[in-house]
């Protein structure tokens, strides 16, 4: 079987769950080594080395990789790519930013956001906001693939494989990191949450959005999601947007409140195990995709639900 190199998703401190899910996918294609690129991130590499099934971990540290700018990490992967048959990354914003650059420089047509591996060269990926699934065969000898990791379970941990330091000569004179505004970290991470409560335009204001959704989320130990309309209106930060152009989630329970169910929103949450819709309109499109529908005014139903849980 061919070897694959998987780019780890992390923030220099912790390994992101997206990596563990992507390992599960990558192992179905072939053997997997993990690349951790960052700065002062030896802990991340040691966490990656605990993932079962992985061959080894390559660790590239340096200021030039601290913020994982696309130009730097793509050049690093190119230095390492030679022995690998597949180059893989989770389809996080970072993976999406970096991998097409790698593909172009290798003169390879990338396969974006696969949700299923049919065989070593045949994959399934959603198109048209998940309204169609494409089964495609890659005729490339080297493959560059991003993984829609919410479709895969987490790989197990426990083994412990070697971590190899890699030296690189990468320099980046094209772009520089300036700053990052992270959303509140006190809340449950959206993509890994078991339960998500998600709010739409109907909340009317940020005050109401927070006042109603936070207690409900706390009660359920849930992450808070939002529709694009709610994000555009400033009720919730951009990184909480669920959908075609936001995050794709698949929790055990997704509660959509005051969200109509536009196809672009459905694209991000249709794979949830159980979907609840709370909406005052009995004809809202979300209902066709929900398991349980409560026709109610959210301003009454949400506090009542919170109280009764």
């Amino acid at each position, binding site marked *: 079987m061919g070897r694959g190199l998987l780019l780890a998703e992390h923030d220099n401190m912790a390994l992101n769950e997206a990596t563990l899910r992507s390992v599960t996918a990558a192992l179905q294609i072939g053997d997997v080594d993990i690349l951790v690129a960052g700065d002062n991130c030896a802990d991340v590499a040691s966490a990656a080395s605990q993932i079962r099934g992985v061959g080894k971990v390559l660790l590239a540290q340096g200021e030039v990789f601290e913020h994982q700018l696309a130009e730097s990490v793509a050049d690093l992967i190119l230095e390492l790519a030679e022995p690998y048959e597949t180059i893989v990354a989770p389809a996080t*914003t970072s993976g999406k930013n970096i991998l*097409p*650059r790698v593909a172009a420089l290798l003169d390879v047509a990338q396969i974006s956001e696969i949700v299923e591996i049919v065989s070593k060269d045949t994959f399934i990926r*959603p198109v048209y906001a998940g309204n*169609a699934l*494409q089964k495609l*065969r890659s005729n490339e000898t080297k493959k560059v693939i991003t993984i829609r990791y919410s479709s895969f379970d987490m790989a197990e941990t426990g083994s412990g494989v070697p971590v190899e330091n890699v030296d690189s000569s990468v320099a980046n004179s094209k772009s520089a990191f*300036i700053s990052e505004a992270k959303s509140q970290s006190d809340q449950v991470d959206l993509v890994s949450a078991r339960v998500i409560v998600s709010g739409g335009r109907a909340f009317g204001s940020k005050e109401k959005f927070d006042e109603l959704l936070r207690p409900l989320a706390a009660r359920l130990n849930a992450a808070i999601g939002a529709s694009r309309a709610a*994000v555009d209106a400033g009720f919730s930060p951009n990184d909480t947007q669920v959908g075609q152009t936001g995050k794709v989630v698949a929790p055990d329970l997704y509660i959509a409140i005051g969200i109509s169910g536009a196809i672009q929103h459905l694209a991000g949450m249709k794979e949830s195990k159980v979907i609840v819709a709370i909406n005052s309109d009995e004809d809202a499109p979300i209902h066709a*995709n929900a398991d349980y529908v409560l026709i109610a005014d959210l301003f009454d139903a949400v506090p009542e639900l919170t109280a009764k849980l």
Partner: protein
Amino acid sequence: MKILVPIKRVIDFNVNIRVRDDGTGVETDNVKMSMNPFDEIAVEEALKLREAGVAEEVVVVSVGVEKAQDVLRTSLAMGADRAILVKTSDDVEPLNVAKILKAIVGQEHPQLVLLGKQAIDNDANQVAQMLSALLNWGQATFASDIDISGTKVRVSREVDAGLQTIEVNLPAVISVDLRLNTPRYATLPNVMKAKRKPLDIKTPEDFAVDVSLRHTILETLPPAARKGGVVVANVDELVDKLKNQAGVI
């Protein structure tokens, strides 16, 4: 400064997509086609930069079928100066689009390429990054704010953790996200005027780009349908169902 804006003609975002029964793709007969919504945002941003005096010329380009002239005309009506259609018979893979765009950049010498972060048909999210790599230019993807001063551009990017700000040197390729701006509508007089604006038609051969496909699409399938929901009478019933039937709380 000249700005190049690549745009794509796609099925309108409001259309309910139907997969053909024979698995050969999605239904496109009698289906409304429009400019990819992200590309409209890129056109708008380029026009704003021209209006602010940062850019002098906005050139739009589409790689696609003959009919893609419609979306080029739309962007000319929005205010773009000139258009180029690179006529291809069918769906071209993002890598080959990037190669064609690279060749156009070689002829047009823009300082900035602005384009949508993804097309809502194949959702590939590749062209901007690939073009930037092939040109060996700086790259800023998923932009929700763009601020140009001199030879540097500050870009706020929508990332998983929140917002990231980076600075790239010009020339650069920037892909845009939804919250960058709200595109203008073309007024009727401008639609008329757009008919007289230049629109060049080229082919991939003009740029010596081989557009043969690297992937074979074996089949297009409809997604698994969900069963319609059970309507519950009240909050009590919902709580009961979630606890005792679904077992998720």
